């Protein structure tokens, strides 16, 4: 059987600065000065007002779970060793939302409203943003 690994994101010119940031351990997002909105995922223009002068900002990497599911039947063999694993939509404190796994020893206990903090998983030439539960209220600050 051919061993196929987990999917590795292929950066585009638009997303390259984001993935470069991840390799430095920084979670970047776009900010639109024209309408003062945070934008994720990276695009060539603001999806709210169309402005093209977007600024890259660094997120503190902390957020709250807006939705969460636990996968028992993975989409490919590469994810089988991880089952069950949590997939979540994370609302970052800077005002943008992204999908990621919540890396927890107890994925079934991960719940909406939980506070999480970013960590990076090395996958090929990519550092993939992931989240882990905040260990203490202090870490949440």
């Amino acid at each position, binding site marked *: 059987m051919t061993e196929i690994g987990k999917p590795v*994101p292929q950066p585009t010119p638009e997303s390259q600065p984001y993935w470069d940031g991840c390799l430095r351990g920084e979670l970047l997002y776009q900010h639109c000065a024209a309408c003062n909105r945070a934008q*994720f995922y990276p695009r060539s223009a603001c999806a709210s007002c169309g402005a093209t002068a977007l600024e890259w900002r660094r997120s503190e990497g902390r957020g709250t779970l807006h939705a969460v599911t636990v*996968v*028992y039947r993975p*989409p490919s063999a590469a994810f089988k060793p991880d089952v069950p694993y949590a997939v*979540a939509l994370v609302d970052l404190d800077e005002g943008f*939302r992204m999908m990621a796994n919540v890396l927890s020893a107890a994925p079934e206990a991960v719940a909406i409203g939980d506070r999480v903090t970013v960590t990076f998983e090395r*996958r090929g030439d990519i550092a993939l943003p992931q989240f882990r539960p905040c260990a203490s209220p202090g870490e949440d600050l």
Partner: protein
Amino acid sequence: MAGPPPSRRARLSGVGDTAFGALPGSSVLGIHAQAARQAIADAGLTQGDVDGVLCAYSLVEPHLMLSSVVAEYLGIRPAYSLGMMLGGATGCAMIMQAAMLVESGRCRHVLVVAGDMRLTGMSRDGAVAALARVGHPQFEVPYGPNIPAYYGLVASRYMHEQGATPEQLAHIAVTMRRHAGLHPGAHMREPITVADVLASRMIARPLRLLDCCLVSDGAAAVVVSAADASGGTRDSRIALLGAGQGHTHEHVSQAPSLTDFGCHEASSRALGEAGVTPAAVDVAEIYDSFTITLLIELESMGFFAKGEAGPAIAAGALGLAGRLPTNTHGGLLSFGHSGAAGGLTHVVEAVRQLRGEADARQVPDARLAFVHGDGGILSAHCSLVLARA
């Protein structure tokens, strides 16, 4: 919202379908042709009368120009041909497109057809992998969601906000199976209970196996005729009174809300164009890729108040004798799901209900039908209002 005047409204003059389930020995093009020939014959036409062909797509036998390939296979030389891709909304969107073609005078009789062989034509793992790629390749797919996981995220949020229970979701699956048991062509006809659903294995919390639609082989077809050409058809009574679409996102991580979707706008536009309210609908055929899909759509579209669909469904609201008989063929959950053909079966069933040809599952005197398809992760929406003259 003004639609075409009554005298110009498109007629759904013919319907056809294959049985759904495992169809070994068939090909994707073969089942397209089988459903298409049945629909053309049902309309009382010959294939030489067809001057428009709309097709969807196939994962099993991919073609860049499926509508041209299907026309060639059938031996039709249409004046208008188009392949469309809108996920599960494709079936309804093709009907809407066909109606615009005949109402504008471009075409007289448009064949709408879709089919795939997702059960016997590809491995189960292959189907799971192919469909999971609907996610964003950089910002979703690397995290390993399967299709139920995308909907599991939606379900988690909905249940968090509205307090819906797994039992309420299970009632949807049970109702769909009961309806499928009355359709000889349905993929799964054995009755199930709420306990069966709750005991089925977890796929992506909170969704269990029996909360998920089937993977089937099958095809469906509809002939849409111009009002002034429908005199030559066998039955010209079924008119499209209204159609509407609504689109808010493609990827679930970009959805502006996880409890209210473009189905709200799609149904408002379709019902508004038809000049009717949800309360006037006699029978509903609404996309049910997962139990949660149907629950949320029913509320988002105004058939039930927010938070009230779950208890109402548990009390029998979607049954044949209920307040809103829904998915009378068994839907994607039990009749079967074969790509765009899955959504098109909802249209086929609506026409049969309005003609009074639904046999044991007939809703008495059904005169007004509402049909809805959604594609992606509740992303692309198209609603139709059909009526018997």
